């Protein structure tokens, strides 16, 4: 299959991007400054991320759509206000995760942002579940641009006045350059920032404008180190069809009001696990010294028994040390538990630690 390109591909090229194939797309892993510089620039200034490979699924409908979606997602959508967003999951009956996503209530229905590698399957699953009553549009005509970091609000507001009035996890339509942009205050880096849905033909000019105002393009490499420092899950690593939200330590994302009656896909399993606890749970892990424990590194206790596995591990540029996340047996999931990581045949000491590794700077109360 031919590799897909986003509408910013030429701009990446002219900014000396190194490309990788990701979920069928040619995406920039880094630009000439490298992952560490890009990471630090995002934390101190403003980074631009092309996330146009992700799915933008618009589902159109009225209150009956809300009812149908509540049968799918573990969310209190009836009480979700227009333009407010929630993090959630598409699950199977066993509460295994097909995808993690952000769903926003918009005037015409809902907008769901899906992972690139999952979006086509998600579309199929949701189309089957919802039937022909509602119109679904996995919109390939729109790009998705994230701008993240403390200077982002000032930079974006100088182009689109009013975005500074958005609260975290809310969005709205804005007019710019004779078109409507949907902008949410959200992100995947642990920093304040925005995600901008914009039509493909306007995306390049828009990003060039952001660069002119002082923001810089950041690749997927730094996006990964940023999200890992922020303790955020990456589908295919921390999350997959064999993991549940309870095991992933994401029970906060399940609306409390939905737990008493269930009625969403996977609710039985979720309710059981909430009561009895899961046998394995996702934790933060800090190796001692400088050693990096990558994905699939086996985790042992001091009696040589395997108790888990690393799902993501790298060097955290802002933490200035190695960081990882993984799953361990429940009894080893307490903060400060000593564990051993097997790297290149040797066992190295590490500690279970609290997440995130890097403190968040989200803006909560503008209004």
């Amino acid at each position: 299959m031919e590799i897909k390109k986003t509408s910013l591909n030429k701009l990446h090229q002219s900014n000396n991007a190194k490309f990788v194939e990701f979920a069928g797309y040619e995406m920039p892993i880094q630009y000439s400054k490298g992952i560490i510089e890009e990471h630090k620039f995002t934390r101190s200034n403003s980074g631009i991320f092309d996330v146009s490979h992700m799915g933008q699924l618009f589902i159109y409908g009225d209150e009956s759509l809300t009812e149908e979606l509540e049968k799918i997602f573990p969310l209190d959508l009836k009480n979700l206000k227009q333009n407010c967003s929630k993090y959630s999951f598409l699950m199977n009956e066993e509460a295994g995760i097909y995808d993690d996503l952000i769903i926003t209530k918009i005037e015409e229905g809902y907008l769901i942002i899906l992972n690139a590698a999952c979006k086509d399957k998600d579309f199929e699953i949701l189309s089957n579940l919802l039937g022909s009553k509602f119109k679904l549009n996995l919109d390939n005509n729109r790009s998705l641009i994230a701008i993240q970091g403390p200077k982002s609000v000032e930079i974006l507001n100088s182009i689109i006045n009013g975005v500074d009035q958005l609260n975290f996890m809310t969005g709205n339509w804005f007019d710019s350059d004779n078109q409507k942009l949907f902008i949410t205050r959200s992100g995947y880096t642990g920093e304040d920032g925005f995600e901008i849905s914009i039509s493909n033909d306007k995306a390049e000019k828009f990003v060039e404008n952001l660069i002119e105002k002082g923001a810089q393009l950041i690749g997927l490499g730094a996006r990964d180190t940023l999200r890992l420092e922020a303790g955020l899950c990456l589908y295919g690593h921390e999350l997959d069809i064999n993991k549940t939200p309870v095991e992933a330590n994401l029970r906060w994302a399940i609306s409390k009001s939905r737990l008493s009656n269930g009625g969403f896909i996977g609710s039985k399993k979720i309710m059981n696990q909430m009561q009895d606890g899961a046998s394995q749970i996702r934790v933060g892990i800090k190796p001692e010294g400088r050693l990096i424990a990558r994905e699939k590194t086996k985790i042992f206790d001091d009696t040589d028994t395997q108790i888990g596995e690393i799902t993501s591990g790298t060097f955290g540029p802002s933490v200035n040390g190695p960081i990882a996340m993984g799953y361990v047996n429940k009894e080893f999931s307490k903060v400060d538990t000593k564990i051993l990581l097997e790297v290149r045949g040797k066992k190295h000491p590490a500690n279970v630690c609290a997440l995130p590794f890097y403190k968040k700077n989200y803006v909560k109360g503008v209004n």
Partner: protein
Amino acid sequence: MSEVKFSKEHEWITLEGDVATIGITKHATEMLGDIVFAELPEKGSNVEKDGTAGVVESTKAASDVYTPVSGEVVDTNQAIVDDPSKINEDPEGSAWFFKLKMKDQSEMDSLMNKEEYDKFAKESAS
């Protein structure tokens, strides 16, 4: 000191008497990106030509470091273990990896000179 020679695994090597100094090339560091971890062979251990003799890790991935010649490890560069970013800064100078007491100096003969390596690196990168 001898002319600098290069291996296909992107190591450089110089010889002084029977002691070889080995590091990774600038081209290798550019391919790897930001280096954040280095592991070196133990002093006193013996390493075999083309065998692994350490590890470097970038933010993205781990890569083995190979030795282009055989010998006994007589010194290692602790400075790059303590601060691996030095490898990106000065890979073909102060950020050497280890020194070997060579057994068979003819092992140097099959390695590339600078001109040959630059051509090889350019071709393998494209």
